[in-house]
């Protein structure tokens, strides 16, 4: 097996894939969260400012989903095929959410009528919520494992995706995004809207911490295999500790009015959560609940080494480029939202 810096290519690509997914969750996470709390902003002007806070960047954020899809397809085609065909129904709902959300943002500002804008506000909020929930639901089921037969194909019923654990993960994901999004919006707004969002972000932190604690307790009690790795590797305990610290840092920074640090903290929280899931799941990409031997792993689902090398070359060239212009776009639109004639 060919290795690079002591790790084989499959593991490298697993790390790249994980980084892309974390990037997606952090970036699209805040605009999805902003969408999910949209209806809590009552005034038309507030809603417009909130929309324009994500306006120039949400499209770029969604690119990470496309890169993630491509990364899974290219690196682990067997996992890509199994995951999306198994999650057919929830994934289709997710996709419809993606469509409606994109067009709601685009269409809303095109007409001045109140009914028009209210309708698209509802679509935008509803679609953002559905996307967050279905992402969480799929993540929960991936962590839990699904029935896979000897051909590594889904052998269950899609209704079984709605199990208590996955539903809890779904709600936690929604809460996490809403917290993340509200912090982002607070950072981007001023005056009364800022004051309103300060209160909202505090409530979402509580919502997140509660759902997180409940899900964690449930996991420890009823899904023991998801804490095996940390239990057997005391060094890995650093991750949950860091996570608790970063979560605790969020209200601390908010109290000081340092929203940028609070936002960084909630981004770190998202990354640590995903690292923890990845640690517990590895080496499985999709665990078979019927027979562990049927599971799809980082090694039996991968592309050829040649492709892995090509992919890593693409990533090494592409990532700095994406990083440069993403930062440039965020830097261009830094500071509080100012509406002008081209705004949504």
């Amino acid at each position: 097996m060919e290795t690079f810096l002591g790790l084989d290519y499959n593991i490298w690509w697993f790390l790249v894939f994980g980084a892309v997914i974390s990037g997606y969750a952090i970036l699209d996470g805040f605009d999805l969260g902003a969408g999910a709390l949209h209806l809590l902003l009552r005034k038309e002007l507030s809603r417009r400012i909130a929309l324009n806070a994500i306006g120039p960047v949400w499209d770029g954020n969604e690119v990470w989903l496309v890169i993630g899809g491509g990364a899974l397809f290219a690196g682990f085609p067997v996992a890509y095929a199994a995951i999306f065909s198994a999650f057919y129904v929830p994934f289709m709902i997710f996709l419809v959410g993606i469509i409606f959300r994109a067009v709601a943002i685009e269409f809303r500002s095109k007409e001045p009528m109140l009914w028009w804008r209210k309708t698209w506000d509802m679509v935008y909020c509803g679609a953002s919520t559905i996307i967050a929930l279905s992402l969480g639901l799929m993540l929960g089921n991936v962590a839990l494992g699904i029935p896979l037969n000897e051909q590594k194909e889904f052998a269950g019923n899609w209704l079984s995706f709605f199990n208590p654990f996955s539903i809890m993960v779904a709600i936690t994901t929604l809460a996490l995004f809403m917290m993340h999004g509200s912090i982002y919006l607070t950072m981007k707004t001023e005056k009364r809207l800022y004051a309103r969002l300060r209160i909202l972000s505090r409530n979402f932190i509580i919502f997140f911490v509660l759902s997180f604690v409940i899900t964690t307790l449930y996991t420890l009690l009823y899904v023991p295999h998801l804490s095996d790795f940390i239990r057997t590797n005391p060094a890995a305990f650093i991750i949950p500790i860091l996570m608790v610290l970063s979560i605790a840092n969020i209200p601390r920074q908010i109290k000081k009015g340092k929203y940028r640090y609070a936002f960084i903290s909630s981004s770190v929280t998202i990354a640590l959560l995903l690292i923890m899931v990845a640690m517990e799941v590895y080496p499985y990409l999709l665990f078979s609940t019927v027979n562990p031997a049927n599971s799809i792993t980082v090694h039996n689902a991968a592309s050829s080494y040649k492709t892995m090398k090509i992919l890593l070359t693409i990533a090494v060239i592409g990532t700095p480029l994406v990083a440069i212009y993403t930062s440039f776009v965020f830097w261009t639109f830094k500071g509080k939202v100012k509406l002008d004639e081209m705004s949504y």
Partner: protein
Amino acid sequence: MDVEILSRIQFAFTIAFHYIYPPLSIGLGLLLVVFEGMYLKTGDKRYEQITRFWIKIFALIFGIGVATGIIMEFEFGTNWATYSKYVGDIFGSALAAEGIFAFALESGFLGILIFGWNRVGPKVHFFSAVMVFLGSMFSAVWIVVANSWQQTPAGFRIVGEGMEARAEITDFWAMVFNPSSVERLTHVWIGAFLAGAFLVLSVNAWYILKNKHLHIAKPSFKIALFTATICSLLQLFVGHKSADGVAKNQPAKLAALEGHYDSLATGDMYLLGYVNNKTQQTTGIRIPGGLSFLLHGDFKTPIKGLNAFPENERPRQVNAIFQFYHIMVGIGVTLIALSVFATWLHFRNKLFDKRWLLWIFVWAVLLPQIANQAGWFAAEMGRQPWVVYGLLRTSDALSKTVTANQVLFSLIMFMVVYLLLFILFLYLLNRKIQHGPVDYGTKEDIEEGSKRDNPLLAH
């Protein structure tokens, strides 16, 4: 209906709908670069107005293009799991490259293009327009490469057997520059430029007819006409090159395109016709030996017909393929005639006098769209029964775990959603066009503009 036919309908439907938008993004992207370049060079405020107007329409088109494009990326996994496993090495790398090299560039700079007018200087703004355009061009590169590999696979080897078989890359650049990549990509690019140019032509022809916004409608019409003329003429050569490639690499497809069954006969070229799939007869207006002449330079050389291929290795819906192909070619010729004629009138200073011609331009926006769709259908149906030409059959490429009911549910869902989306798109596009460009230069317009855009004043 079974899973195969439902999945094929779903794929064809979702991609056909998606394929309305990316060509427009590419074509409009090119014109945006030209318009804003003119503005930067001349400082003429009219070009700023034109640019801003088309950026708003671009944003609308781009939004739907992205939303429907994300569906496509995942449909391979949801509906075509076996295919995904088979081509993951290759198709997956192309998709990943598209995401990171093209789509990220395009979407990143789009924010600056739309919202950045007051945030960045004119040069950076122009740079963003160029980057968005380049991003959309690169997108086409990787998508067409991935699709071309399905048509003419290269740079790979097959590993494993039966249902476990899959393609592995042996030579990345041979995969990228497979025998049909370059000719198909240029064909697609120019088709996209034409789609964009004819949209601009249509809108401005309508303004001129209605005597509105003349000071900006006329210059934009001319720029678009210039683009359309060059591109339609280029397409003649590029399209021919494409057909040559099909003859060389996919002879069964070529035979289907021309409805040619008999291997011992010379190939006739049809202008119009009808293929009877049962009797294997093609009737219509034809140039005897025309196809032979185009491919071999004489009217005598026989061309390989469909009968030279085993029944289960050639496309079945020959008449449909024939018709799609001929619609595309026919439109291509029409576009050349239309744009060359208009250019000729332009040089005689009579272009804007001919109201009937302007009306034709108003409706001609549909032609490149129809040609793009027809060309795509001819190319994809002509590849059947293979999903990867000569290697993997479409019927073997399905997801085994997905049921007919699930596909039917998603198909109906997409149909309803897309229909709704399309109606809204047309409605909003029409409203944007009716509203017309805003003059950002004069005081009244700025006041009017801010009144419209400021919700406190609007309500």
